[in-house]
């Protein structure tokens, strides 16, 4: 495969280098801690950069100058640590005269967009789902020429910090629509979406004792939706199937749980693994799906 596709190396532009040359990029890509360190989500970061390179938008990243936005500290109640992080980041961003920030993490998005302004950080902040939607609307991304998703089932798991927190429900769905796949909605979606279980700093601690972990509950619902499995759905409270049941033993054709958040990615992937469904169900971020469909994976 590789010998058939011409590929070119990407040198990701650093903000410090651009500033030294007196240039300013159109957008700053805020990578986030998960995007920089989590092995799985690094692939999303790289997919998103491939899209940025492909459409030729001028961008830069902070690299080692980026630091945690403070979201997990704030949600856990450590306001002091949050504000230390926030003011340091704001000083960095303001120092470079940044106007527009794009990020693939809804937690970074929410914090920079909603909580930084009161601390002196006024930026136009865009989540990558909205950014991808704009690229599609402008015709810069067509999702043709790469991998085809025809006949595959995709269900989108809403991120709380994108949806309920900031009212972004349509952008990720519009992005998925260009894939020409079978899109299925879970019963609990949009404003009624169920959390993946990792928000509010839960990502960094064991869950409190209970009957079940939240990500298992959510994964069961996602799998039941993808399978059209009425029996499983009946066990979930008040949930009805919307999709036809797949014949037993049929190849599910690589169904996808689509996410737009690093925490959701981890939680859904863990859930799929727990249910031993990695063979036929994959968890992908919107950026990965678009990069594949656009044929940008080198």
């Amino acid at each position, binding site marked *: 495969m590789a010998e058939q596709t011409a590929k070119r190396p990407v040198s*990701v532009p650093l903000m410090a280098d651009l500033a030294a040359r007196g240039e300013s990029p159109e957008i700053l890509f805020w990578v986030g801690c998960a995007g920089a360190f989590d092995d799985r989500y690094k692939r999303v970061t790289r997919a998103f950069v491939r899209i940025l390179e492909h459409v030729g938008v001028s961008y830069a990243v902070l690299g080692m100058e980026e630091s945690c936005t403070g979201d997990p500290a704030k949600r856990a109640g450590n306001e002091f640590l949050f504000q230390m992080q926030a003011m340091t980041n704001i000083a960095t961003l303001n120092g470079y005269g940044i106007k527009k920030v794009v990020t693939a993490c809804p937690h970074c998005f*929410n914090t920079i967009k909603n*909580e930084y302004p009161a601390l002196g950080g006024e930026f136009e902040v865009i989540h990558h789902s909205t950014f991808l939607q704009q690229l599609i609307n402008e015709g810069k991304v067509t999702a043709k020429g790469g991998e085809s998703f025809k006949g595959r089932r995709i269900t989108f798991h809403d991120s709380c910090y994108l949806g309920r927190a900031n009212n972004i429900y349509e952008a990720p769905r519009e992005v998925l629509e260009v894939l020409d796949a079978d899109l299925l909605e879970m019963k609990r979606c949009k404003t009624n979406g169920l959390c993946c279980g990792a928000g509010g700093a839960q990502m960094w601690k064991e869950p409190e004792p209970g009957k079940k972990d939240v990500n298992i509950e959510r994964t069961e619902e996602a799998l039941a939706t993808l399978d059209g499995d009425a029996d499983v759905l009946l066990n979930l409270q008040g949930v009805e199937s919307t999709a036809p049941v797949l014949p037993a033993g049929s190849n599910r054709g690589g169904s996808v749980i689509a996410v737009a958040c690093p925490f959701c990615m981890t939680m859904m992937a863990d859930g799929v693994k727990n249910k031993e469904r990695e063979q036929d169900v994959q968890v992908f971020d919107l950026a990965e799906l678009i990069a594949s469909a*656009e044929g940008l994976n080198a």
Partner: protein
Amino acid sequence: MHFSIQNILFLLVAVAGFGLFAWQARKIRANILVGRDRDMSGHVNERLWKTLLVAFGQQKMFKRLTPAFLHLIVYVGFIVINIEVIEIMVDGLFGTHRFLQFLGPLYSALTGTNEVLGALVVLAVVVFWWRRNVGVVRRFTGPELRAWPKLDANVILYVEVVLMVALFTMNAADLKLHQLEGKDLPGAFPVSSLLTGLFPDNLTALAVLERVGWWAHIVGILLFLNYLPSSKHFHIIMAFPNVFYSRLVPQGQFSNVESITHEVKAMMDPSYQVPAPATNPDGSAAAPTPFGAKDVDDLAWTNLLSAYSCTECGRCTSVCPANLTGKLLSPRKIIMDTRDRVEEKYNSPLIFHPSLYGPEAKHNPQEQLDKENHTLLRGYVTPEELWACTTCNACVEACPVNINPLESIVEMRRFLVLEESAAPNSLNVMFSNIENNGAPWAFSPSDRFNWADDLFVAEK
């Protein structure tokens, strides 16, 4: 007009009823104002619009159609019956009889609508009672909905039936009285006309029954009015101010603690002037305000207002991912605890105090014995509940009257972390990772850009 001793009696009853309510309302207002100050001025048009949609228009109720429809009947019935209450008040004070009859056809429309709604209210109440006591609506169960809260919910339903029965007794007796006397009773009575057969043919008995119905209806309403402050049914009043003062910012936006902002700014810039600490009126230094919330007076007054507007419907808890998966957290319980605690610590305006209704009414009796820790945090709400929250905003989204349980949860987390350093250890590890590495995981900041190594893009 037949002015009589009845009118003087009615005046006394009405003054006593409204007076007692005003006295209770004053205490509740004082209870709400023990909360921390929060500037909610401005955005009046936006707030009024929201109140119109969410409180008057029941917008958020319609997320669940069956209860929305049943609730709408009772709600519209309540509003229309209030017009009749005006008539009853005037009749009662001035000895008139059905004084609104001068409205003519409009009066027939009013009484007719009222009768139909009255009958539908009885039907709705029966379904409500079934759903609550026999049916399997999960949100009507749960540890916080035993004892007084459970009794309270049923009492409201019973009272509503009694009020409707009184209304129909009054109308049907009056109708039959007029029929036997060969006179026309102004108004339309589609339901009472079906009931006249149940009433005696004796004129005196009918006159007495009409009076009994009339008095039972208005006295019932005045008693119910004074029951409200003890009850979750207080939401019929408090929903309106609560929606008016609800948050207008995105749900994901948490408040930035201002006192901490000053501290951090001073740390980052030594020339920054931190505002002088607050002083008491006599000039002495005021006690410092703690970070976060340990007790009800550490919450904002809007949080306390919310506690009084909660109708314990449990929509918040029924969508809470932690609660759904069997964890201890119930957003409804946090709100109910807040109200119980404020009533315990400050004035209890209640005629029916929750603590009178058995040990089950208290959530953590063991901890309540511990006077030292007897505050909202720990006395009522345990850290385990607070740490189970994913801050997903599902509870906030679900509340039909715009209560925000998440605000209180985060405020109590702030107290645990900033005042007591009592976060779970794994979260302390996360904090120190952020402090030392700029990331919640233990990775070196120098590896932050490694993802960009050997990155290729397919050339098309």
